[in-house]
Structure formats: structure tokens, C-alpha cells
């Protein structure tokens, strides 16, 4: 085989370029910490990374939704606790004013107490979060009940309870049907029932008092049922949060495998390519140093 000068130089330059390319790639991986420079360096990895980033974004959104739902559920739970307390207080107040032994003054005081409780219940049902009523169903901009003088409106919201997604296939309720809570299948809502009860207590109307106590009892049951449901939702939110955290850890781990450079491997490649690069340079610099021309006289 004839060995010619141009081939020697062409091969030398080619070897230098290949070694320099490997050196630059290892250096890029170390300095950037990223394994993939362009999608073509790992087409499947690049496509997978896009999907994993999307999953991560979705999980973060779920986490945010779970936090918001948790706060709203806490708010509703707190309002329901107060409603239950107020209803218990109404029962106690009514029972304490019942019977022929009670004086009119005692009955009048109890009647006033019931009206105060009714006012507190109105405040509880009209609880808002960032300007939206949480017990109006989907009619978030309408208060569930309003009071004009001594008259209370009928339930003004709707019966649609709204939800948000807190994980794939899991949602949590964030607004409630206040009509179902305060009236249910009764002929009048609890606010009107307490007004009638207050009148009955003041008048010593035992039949009216009993009807009022029955209405309170039913409202109590509805409130405790609603609170139990919220408790379930809160547990589901916590479960979803844990699941999201676990999923997120998995996604980040997979992303790291796809995108992050193996620094130890990259450092080894850097050292290896550095040696190859220097060898290629040295090799080319030696080429042509010795020639038959040197021996011509």
C-alpha cells in the first residue's frame, strides 16, 4: 500500500476532530449537567422528557388544587361546626324555656336568645372564600340567604355542588348546597323555623316549641351528615396529596435519569477524550518530521 502525505494529514485531522468532538461533548455534559444537548442525541429520551415534564406540571396543578380544596373544606368544616354548636345551643335554650314553671321574663329572654342564634346561623351559611359564597352551590356570587328586616329570603343558591380535580380521577367538593343543609325536605328553612320557635317560646306554645325542636333536630342531622361528608373529603384530599407527592418523586427520578448527565461517567469520558485528543495532536505533529528528503545530499 502506498502511503501518501495527504492521507496522513487527512487522517490526522480527522482523528483530531473526532477526539475534540468527544472532548467538547464530555465538557458540555459536565458544565451543563445535562445529558441531552439536542433531541437527536436521544430522540426517545427527549420525547419522554416532554411527557414527564407535562406530568410534573399536572401534578403541581393537582397539588395546588388539593391545597385550595383543603382550605375550602376546612372553612366549610369550621362553619358546620359552628352551625352544629348553634343548633345545640338553640335546643338547650328552647328546652330551658319549656314548661309551666318558667316565667315570662325567662321565656322572653330565651326567645331573644333564639333570634341571636338565628342571626349567627345566617352568618355561618353566608360564609365566603375570596368573595364567593361556599354554601350557594354554583351560584357563588349570590348569598344563600338574606335578611330584610325580620324576613328571611328563601334559599337563593342552586343545588349544584361544585368540585375540583385533586388527582387523576379524584375530585373534592368546594361548594355546597345551602338549601339542602338549612331546609332539606322541610316546609321551611331553619332560619324561619327558629323565628317561629322564638315566637312559640315567648308565647309558651308547647306545640310550636315541639315543632321547632323537631326542625332543629332535623337540621342538626343534616349538618352532622354534611360535616361527616366533608371529613371524608378531607381524608381524600390528604390521600390525594400523598399520592401526588409519591408520583412527583417518581417523575422527578425518571426525568433525572433521562435528562441529567452522569457526572462520574462524563468526567471519565473527559479524561479519556483529553488523552485521545492530545495523542491525536502529538501524532500529527510528528507526521512529516522524518522524510527521505532529509537524506538527500
Amino acid at each position, binding site marked *: *500500500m*502506498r*502511503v*501518501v*502525505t*495527504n*492521507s496522513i494529514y*487527512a*487522517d490526522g485531522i*480527522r482523528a483530531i476532530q473526532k477526539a475534540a468532538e468527544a472532548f467538547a461533548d464530555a465538557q458540555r455534559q459536565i458544565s451543563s449537567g445535562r445529558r441531552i444537548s*439536542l*433531541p*437527536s*442525541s*436521544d*430522540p*426517545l429520551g*427527549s*420525547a*419522554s*422528557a*416532554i*411527557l*414527564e*415534564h*407535562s406530568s410534573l*406540571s*399536572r401534578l403541581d*396543578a393537582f397539588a*395546588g*388544587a388539593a391545597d*385550595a*380544596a383543603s382550605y*375550602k373544606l376546612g372553612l366549610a368544616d369550621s362553619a358546620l361546626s359552628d352551625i352544629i354548636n348553634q343548633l345545640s345551643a338553640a335546643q338547650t335554650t328552647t328546652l330551658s324555656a319549656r314548661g309551666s314553671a318558667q316565667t315570662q321574663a325567662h321565656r322572653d329572654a330565651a326567645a331573644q336568645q333564639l333570634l341571636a342564634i338565628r342571626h349567627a346561623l345566617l352568618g355561618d351559611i353566608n360564609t365566603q*372564600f*375570596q*368573595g*364567593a*359564597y361556599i354554601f*350557594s*352551590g*354554583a*351560584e*357563588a*356570587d*349570590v348569598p344563600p340567604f338574606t335578611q330584610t328586616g325580620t324576613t328571611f329570603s328563601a334559599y337563593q343558591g*342552586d343545588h*349544584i355542588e*361544585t*368540585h*375540583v*380535580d385533586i388527582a387523576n380521577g379524584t*375530585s373534592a367538593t368546594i361548594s355546597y348546597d345551602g338549601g339542602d343543609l338549612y331546609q332539606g325536605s322541610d316546609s321551611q328553612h331553619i332560619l324561619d323555623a327558629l323565628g317561629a320557635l322564638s315566637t312559640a317560646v315567648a308565647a309558651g306554645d308547647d306545640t310550636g316549641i315541639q315543632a321547632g325542636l323537631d326542625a332543629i333536630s332535623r337540621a342538626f342531622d343534616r349538618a352532622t351528615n354534611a360535616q361527616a361528608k366533608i371529613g371524608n373529603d378531607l381524608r381524600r384530599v390528604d390521600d390525594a396529596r400523598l399520592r401526588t407527592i409519591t408520583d412527583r418523586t417518581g417523575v422527578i427520578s425518571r426525568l433525572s435519569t433521562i*435528562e441529567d448527565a452522569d457526572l462520574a461517567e462524563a468526567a471519565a469520558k473527559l479524561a479519556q477524550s483529553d488523552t485521545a485528543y492530545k495523542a491525536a495532536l502529538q501524532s500529527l505533529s510528528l507526521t*512529516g518530521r522524518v*522524510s*527521505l*528528503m532529509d*537524506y*538527500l545530499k
Partner: protein
Amino acid sequence: MLGRTIRALDAQRYGMDVAGQNIANVNTPGYVRRSAYLVEQPPHDLRGAGGGVDVTAVLSSRAPLVEGRLRYEQPAASRDGAIADQLEVLEAGLGQAGSSLDAALAAFYNTYATLAQSPTSSPARQQVVVQAQSLTRAFNDMAARFENQRRNADAGIRADVTQLNALAGQLANINREIAQTDPNHAQGLYDQQALVVKSMTTLVDLNVITRDDGVVDISIGNGRALVIGDTVYDVRVSSDSSGYASLVTDGAAVTTDVTGEIGGGHIGGLLDVRDSLLPNYSSRLDQLAYSVATDVNALTTTGYDLSGNAGVAFFDPPAAVPGAARLLQLNSAVAADNRLVVTSSTTAAGNNDIAIAIGRLQDQAMTGSAAKPVEGWSDLVYGIATDSAGAKQSRDAHEQVAHQLNNLWDQISGVSIDEEAAMLMRFQSAYEANARFFQAVDETLALLMRLGS
């Protein structure tokens, strides 16, 4: 004897001259190593030992087989190289995973899902508007990148055609000179001819026919003449209705569009990128934008805005799939008034079922596609990356073969300085020996002259 010796001295000096010529052109591209062809001369009469030596020709160590093989490999390497170079630029414009169109898509859907938490919240509604505008900009920008890349490829094609025509002109001139020159003195012209043809093969795949007199005829595509002898049939560029270059050749009676006939070389690669790959990518991007907009609009137009009015299309409805990514825009009325953002299928302001449904669109296959929105983008990136990686691999493979062929050509036709040094020494020694012989003859004749005086 003296005459024979003088011819011998001339022959050896000529041999040294050829070696010097080889050394002088050791770095000249396309130069083929020469060698002096020495032939013994017969004796003039029966008593003579011989007529000495003479140089009858200068031979070039040509490698037609290797050159023919290179003409096949070079266009393939150049074609894949052009595709790889173009797609590498395109890839850089795709952005990193998690910060490109995929991020804009995810952010849009997730922001809409977040609005479901507080459908009456003005900041949350405005955030949806902002993210939607980011999404439309991301689509518009990506479509513009694809279009710019097509324009770049087109500009490259035009520049290549200019270069091809210039090379064709050079080849025609060389052909003319070869036809007028004694073949024994045309070695330099043959070198230039081979070099020009080799340069042309980087631009386009050629059909090369070499005539007996050394003139080559070149055609491209389906036998479209480019150079016939000393006549050039320029490839002309005419712009189509979109402003893209079509390549035409003028035959004897007809003008032919040869754009579709060129598959190899740098021009073939650029044509493939411009007319096949990029339109395919653009079409997929358009389909993605069209599906995203259509699916969102299908939900918003069935709902109600915050004021209880019938919902409007969230995005300006794309008229057709082609151009959808470039033209995608948020409905200007929605952009101006975030109360028009639809979240509810009823007039209840706090209803969020549409907002939830739009948030869930990211988990569902799009209309007209089996893929989810981000999957649509991921599939497109994968397609581009695979095409690019394939072109790079193919280019490397062809370049490797071309490199080996070039080495083989060098082995046959290249100049070795050591070899030329040896040739110098060889001819120098021969010259010295002949000079010594001349001296001996001269001294013998001088002796004869003295005897006679």
C-alpha cells in the same frame, strides 16, 4: 555514443523534473501523480548496442474505478449532510423539554383547571387569558421557525444552483481545451476536469459519460443535459406561487421542471427538507393547534360567561388545518374582557364544570388525533429528532465510505514525498552515471585525438 548519452541525460533530467512537478503539487487538490515513461531506443545499425533511452510519455496514475465510486457516495453524503445540518438548526429552535410548546400547553390547561377553584375570581380569569396568549404566541413562533427554516433551505438551493452552473461553465471550458489539446499534454486538464466533476457531485447526483477523447458529458435527474461537450445547459430557478425555487432546464424544444427529479447531493437534501420534511412537520404542528383550539372552543361555545351570556369561542376558530399554528389567536373579545372566559355550562357564576372539562382536555385524545395535546408535541419532536439522528448516522456512514475512497484514491493517485525523494535520488544517480559515461567517452575521444596528432 555522445548523442545517446545526451538523450539519456535529457531523460534522467526529465525524470527529475517530473518528480519536482509532483513535489510542487503535493498539496494541489485533484492533482494526479505523474511519472515519466522511459523507453529504450533501438540501435541505429547492427554494430550499435542501442539508441539509449527516451521519454515517450508522461503517465498519470489515475483511479477511474475509485472516482466512479466516489461519484456515487459523495452525493449521498452531501444529501444527508444537508438534511442533518438543516434539522440540527430546527432542533435548536424546538427548545428544551419543559420550557417549550409543551410547557405552554400544560400551563394553559392547568391554569384553566385552577380557574375551576374560583370561577368568579378576576385574577384567575386574567391568568387564563395570559396563559392562552402565551400558548398562541408559542404556536405562532414555532410555525414561524418552521417557515423560516424552509426559506433558509430555499435560499441554500438557489445558492447551490448558482454554484452548480458556475462549475458546469468551468467544466465546459475544460472540455473545450481537452478537445483541442494533445492527450499527452492534457494531464493537468484531466485533473481539473475530475476535480470539477467531484465538486459537482457534492451538489447534485450526476450521470457522467466520458468520451474517447476525454471530454465528459454531464446530465442530472432523468437524463437532463447539464454539460454536453463545451455547451452548458444552465439549471434555471423560477419561483412558484409561494416564492419557492423550482429548478428548470431548457431542452431543445421544451423547458422541464426537474425539481422532483433531483434526489441527491446538497441540493437534493435541501429539496427534501424544504418540500417534504418541513411541510410534514408544519402540517403536524397545524393539526395540533387546530385540535387544541377546536376542542376548547367546542366546550366554551356550549357554556356561559360570568355575566350569564352564551359563551363565545375562546380562540378565533381556525378556518382550516393548514396555517392553524401560524394564525392561532385568542378571541380578541375574551382578551379584552376576562368575564367572557367560560367556566360554566349554566348561567350560575360559580359553576366550574366547563373549566374542569377544559383542564381535563390535556388528559384526553384530541379531536382528529389519537394523541393527547402534549403527546402531539412530543410525537412531533420525536419525529424531527429521529429524522435528524437518521440523517446524521447516514451522513457519517457515507462520509466514512467517502473518506476511505479518498484514501484509496490518494494511495493510487496521490503524491508521496518519500517516493518522490527516492525518484529524485534514482534519476540523480542515473544522471551522474550517464555524465560519468559521457566523461569516459570524452576522455577516450581525447586520447584518440592525441594519438592522431
